[in-house]
């Protein structure tokens, strides 16, 4: 009855079942996996140019604190984080922006005008006006941001880290 190269009824059923089964399995598995991995796939961009206002607001030679907030949305919740940067105008054309986060354990450093240095209140880390470590435990200089001036307004490129 059955010729040698002909597909047997049983084998045909097996193949059809395997194919249909795989299709149905994929139809269930793909949404399930996508659903679970979804938040892991969403990459939040935490870098942006932030305006510091007109350049003339900042005195030359005196680091000035600028505070701002960044809102991040995680799922159904908004989190507002506060950050601070010190804006230092070296002269008319050169300006530097430093994070006020101590590189030791992330406490906030403060500029002391009388001593002309940044002091971290937590473990007495000391940085100079260029953000370099002068004393104490900090392992690295203060984080410096890229800056630009457009139409008299100062910007810095904020990178959270």
């Amino acid at each position, binding site marked *: 009855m059955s010729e040698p190269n002909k597909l047997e009824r049983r084998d045909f059923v097996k193949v059809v079942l395997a194919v249909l089964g795989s299709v149905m399995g994929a139809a269930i598995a*793909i*949404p*399930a996996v*996508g*659903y*679970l*991995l*979804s*938040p892991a*796939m*969403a990459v939040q961009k935490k870098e942006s140019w932030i305006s510091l206002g007109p350049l003339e607001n900042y005195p030359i030679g005196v680091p000035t604190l600028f505070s701002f907030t960044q809102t991040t949305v995680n*799922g*159904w*919740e908004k989190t507002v984080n506060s950050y601070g940067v010190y804006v230092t105008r070296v002269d008319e054309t050169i300006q530097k922006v430093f994070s006020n986060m101590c590189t030791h354990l992330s406490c906030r450093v403060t500029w002391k005008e009388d001593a002309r240095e940044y002091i971290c209140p937590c473990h007495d880390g000391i940085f100079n006006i260029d953000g370099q470590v002068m004393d104490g435990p900090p392992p690295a200089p203060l984080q410096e941001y890229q800056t630009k001036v457009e139409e008299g307004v100062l910007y810095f490129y904020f990178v959270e880290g």
Partner: protein
Amino acid sequence: MAEKVFTWLDERLGLKTIYNTVLDRNVPKVNWWYTLGSASLFLFALQVVTGIFLTVYYVPSPDHAYDSVQYIMNDVTFGWLIRGIHHWGATLMVIFVFIHMLRTFYFAAYKYPREITWITGVFLLLATLGMGFTGYLLPWNQRAYWATTVGTEIPGTAPFIGEFIMRILRGGSELSAVTLARFFSVHIWFLPAIILLLIGTHMYLVIRLGISAVPRKED
């Protein structure tokens, strides 16, 4: 190889016996109305799986319930699908369980020796309705809020103990965060546990007693 593994397992677990008892049972010649029990069981399984998936993102708190549902619907990949299946599956389950009961009633399948199957079935229907009632509040939108306000007000009209029942349902005199939390708890722990026990009993009895045949004219 696969056959060897299966034989090894079967010798210890008795898989073939389970298969023969559960799936290769003798059944009388019946019609499509007799598939409603299996359909209900399938829908329940579907609700369990999609429900478990929903708890990955859903938060049962007035602050976040609505937003977390919006997040599932708009931002999570295939979130709309999972919640959609849970939403429509719930409606279908009530319908299927109810028609399953009607079939049992009209075909007189509840009679001796199947009374306990019938009774567990009645409680399964009530538990299914309970799942619908508690699940309805969870999205915490206007419809959910007011439907539950009304739904808990109704037992409150009963004389003497009505108000007390209402306070138990709401976890206080008004609808609040406590209501949402307890409805969630009942929805995902209490009722599913009860339903699983009842389904276990129900199906044990179906297998033990077999299903009744379609009644003949002379019955």
